[in-house]
């Protein structure tokens, strides 16, 4: 299956964006993002704390809908999903 991961703003600068991955069945949103982020230590540290938990301010979306980071470990990604990971918004 194929899942697209989009990082924005500072996370995009550190990790790139529109990353198409092919996770195994049963992969959680948290594991997916963690796996991709590990390719760049600074990018990983921007998103995850020392315990490997999402930092408090990180925002996750799955197909345009917010997923609380506390639920990301039990949210299983599906084929065709678009995952977005971004810092607090600052438009306007």
């Amino acid at each position, binding site marked *: 299956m194929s899942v697209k991961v989009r990082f*924005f703003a500072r996370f995009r600068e550190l990790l790139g964006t529109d990353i198409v991955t092919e996770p195994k069945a049963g992969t959680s949103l948290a594991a997916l993002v963690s796996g991709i982020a590990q390719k760049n230590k600074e990018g990983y540290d921007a998103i995850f704390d020392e315990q490997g938990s999402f930092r408090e301010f990180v925002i996750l979306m799955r197909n345009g809908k917010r997923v609380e980071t506390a639920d990301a470990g039990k949210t299983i990604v599906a084929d065709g999903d678009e995952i977005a990971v971004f810092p*607090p918004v*600052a438009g*306007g």
Partner: protein
Amino acid sequence: MVIRVQKEDVDIGALITGAKKHGTGAVVVFDGIVRDDDITEMELEAYEDVAVAEMEKIAAEATRLHNLLHVDIIHRIGRLSIGENILIIVVSAGHRPEAYAGSRYIIEEIKKSVPIWKKELTKDGGRWVPGEHGHGAGKPRK
């Protein structure tokens, strides 16, 4: 109703004319501008589909709460110079209290939940502008 994320600037005068729906007694325009905070330029980035969908929800909610007759929201992205328009909100209503309240509602909600980010470019590099709402951003709406 025009709700858009785009690079191009927009003709505010034309938007005001278009906002004069039957029953309009007041139009309020908010125009957010790139401020000269010792920067050279500003670079804006959006999660476009979600940003537009979120602004459409905000416009609908503002219309319902404040009896608006018309709403336009144009949020610009890309690289903008000092003095350029970033965000233009045009609302019309029968009377001024609704027009002001509706306009203000829209900008405050955009700041909270629309996935757009700004980077201030300076002589020494750049800095991402921190959001005004550290953790509320993108919260699910009722």
